[in-house]
């Protein structure tokens, strides 16, 4: 499967072109190209070890790219470029011996805010996340959930114009996950460009305008969520039934559970033809619906061949 030619956007905030990265002579990224447009929420998807974090680190100048162009706002990223960036790395961390407020004010100052503005903003944020009474508490005395909230606050401290989130819900409890989603909704409304790495496909379907799927260091698929869904066959047939679903060249069984199955039509096979196959085989069909294939299913198709086989 090959990705369609990738257009270059004049209005892109993030522009990656021909990016290659090798570690110890082993290629990790092999000619990756994509753009993230201003104001959109972009999903950067891939299995573990596919090179997502490497790409983000190279984009932010933490790694040196072996080859290719990685630009934010038309030039390589540097903290002094003036881009208001909010970055939540996969590897989370704060200065543990500092008080919450001192830490937030420090990052606020580094991001160009005045001391008073950073302090006021931080106190407002702590109020919002119900942590106002912890302003003077040392970070290492907070629970991990509270530390996550502080980390989120530091990430969005300067009203970023570009928000890069690497597995933002990783390790988050449901409360903080909801908080993050609320923050993302706010940022989207504000027009912030969001680039997020996640394995939560429901989040991608709900939040993302466009996505890129990374596999073996290349863009496996790239476009709007609908475009990608269409590209991977588009339709899944869900059947509730009694009996035994027969094997047939007209479909592939993606999922088979007790009295429930999901079928992928082969080629141009129409749903009616599949229904006929089932009825002819004596299957008592109680419910028969056609749906666009979910990103979860596409993810399994692209990355999880082995695990997909295991559930069949």
């Amino acid at each position, binding site marked *: 499967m090959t990705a369609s030619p990738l257009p270059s956007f004049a209005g892109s905030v993030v522009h990656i072109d021909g990016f290659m990265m090798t570690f110890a002579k082993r290629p990790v990224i092999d000619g990756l190209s994509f753009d993230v447009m201003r104001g959109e929420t972009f999903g950067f998807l891939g299995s573990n070890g596919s090179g997502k974090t490497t790409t983000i*680190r190279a984009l*932010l*100048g*933490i*790694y*040196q790219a072996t080859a290719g162009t990685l630009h934010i706002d038309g030039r390589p*990223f*540097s*903290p*002094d470029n*003036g881009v208001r*960036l909010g*970055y939540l*790395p996969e*590897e*989370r*961390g*704060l*200065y*543990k*011996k*500092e008080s919450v407020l001192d830490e937030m004010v*420090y*990052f606020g*100052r*580094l*991001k*160009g805010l005045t001391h008073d503005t950073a302090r006021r903003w931080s106190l407002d944020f702590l109020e919002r996340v119900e942590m106002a009474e912890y302003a003077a508490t040392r970070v290492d005395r907070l629970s991990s959930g509270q530390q996550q909230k502080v980390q989120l606050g*530091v990430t969005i401290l300067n009203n970023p114009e570009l928000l890069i989130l690497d597995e933002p819900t990783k390790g988050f409890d449901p409360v903080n996950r909801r908080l993050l989603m609320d923050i993302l909704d706010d940022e989207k409304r504000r027009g912030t460009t969001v680039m997020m790495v996640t394995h939560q496909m429901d989040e991608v379907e709900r939040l993302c305008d466009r996505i890129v799927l990374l596999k073996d260091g290349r863009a496996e698929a790239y476009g709007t969520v609908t475009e990608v869904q269409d590209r991977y066959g588009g339709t899944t047939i869900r059947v509730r039934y009694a009996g035994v679903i027969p094997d047939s060249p007209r479909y592939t069984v993606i999922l088979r559970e007790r009295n429930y199955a999901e079928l992928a039509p082969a080629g141009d096979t129409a749903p009616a033809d599949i229904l006929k196959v089932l009825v002819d085989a004596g299957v008592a069909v109680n419910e028969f619906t056609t749906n666009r294939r979910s990103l979860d299913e596409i993810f399994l198709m692209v990355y999880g061949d082995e695990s997909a086989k295991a559930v069949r």
Partner: protein
Amino acid sequence: MRRHNLATVVSFEFRRTVTKRRFWIATLIVPVLIATVFALTYFSSRATSNSLSAQKHASFSFTYVDASHLVNPEIASRFGGRAATSVAGGIAAVKSGRIDAFFDYPAAPATHSILVYGKDVGIFNNAKYSSVATAILQASAIARLPSPSLAPIVRGAVSVKSTTYTNGVTSPGLNGVIPPLIYLLVFYLVIVLLGNQMLTSTVEEKENRVTEMILTTVDARTLIIGKILSLFSAGAVQMLVFASPVVVGYVFFRSSLSLPNVNFADLVIAPRPMITGALLLLGGFTLFTGALIAIGAVMPTAKEAGGFFGAVLGSIFIPFYASSLIVSHPTALIVEVFTFFPLTAPVTAMVRNAFGSLSATASMVLVVELFAIGLFVIRMAIRLFQYGSIEYARKVSLRTAFGLLTKR
């Protein structure tokens, strides 16, 4: 933005350093020790002074025999003594407790000891017998001199002022050596006190997994330079704290503490050694700071980084093993090697500079060498931190480090 961030980093790092308990423990332990030593010296000095005064005026009964014929009976009498008829009789009188002491002056006191016998009054108070026996002989000898002005000469209270010349110009001697040597003292204090903090200053970002957050917020160079400046400021605080008991002791308790009376007006501040010394200090500081930060940047934990501190400290103490050679034979091969080898250069060159054995050409070469290598190493440290500190859990291998340094 960069300047604003530098100030922010410096103030944040400085505040963090000086609000740590271990900083103040390390900072106060030396002045507390100095103050304790001063206090002990002060009280001991007072006790000794009181004791000496008491001994001087101690009155006790004694007799003596004088084979030298030097003892003036009048003087002995002033001390409360009288001549005895025989040695055996004198000793017997002491033993029986009829008198406190008996002195047996030999025929040639210059070559033979005065024999003193006394009633035991404790290990410290027993000293009064020999003090008085000696004082009587000295006073008697001085009384025999033809002129009283000869008395100080006999006592050895003679001062000598010597003048030496270098190329026809009066050389300053030790008064010219002391001022540039102060740079050496400052260098040692800075490296010994702050070296470990320099080494671990960049490890904290790794240990706290904050590297990515910080490197996308502030330029690595600004961060590292900010850390260096904050460390230097913290070092200045430490030196002030260290110096305060010495200054207080010198100004207010100099005589009680038996501190030498230094006449600062005699110190010679010659421009060339002072400027050279300052440049060697700055160059050495730059080199060692860069080296320590570079090591810290490739180490995953403070514990592992700490193992290298001994090696760095060793390099500044090695020249001490050849210190007499550095002063007496500055052109010896080993001294020349120490002078130009980067890690031993600052200490060796500062000593040679103070003693005037560092030529102008060698000074210039060394200053350029230290600054050039120092700045290169700091640049290397920044690069290693920028690209190597993301290796959170393991050391950056030499191969990777070399790769990072040679990439564009």
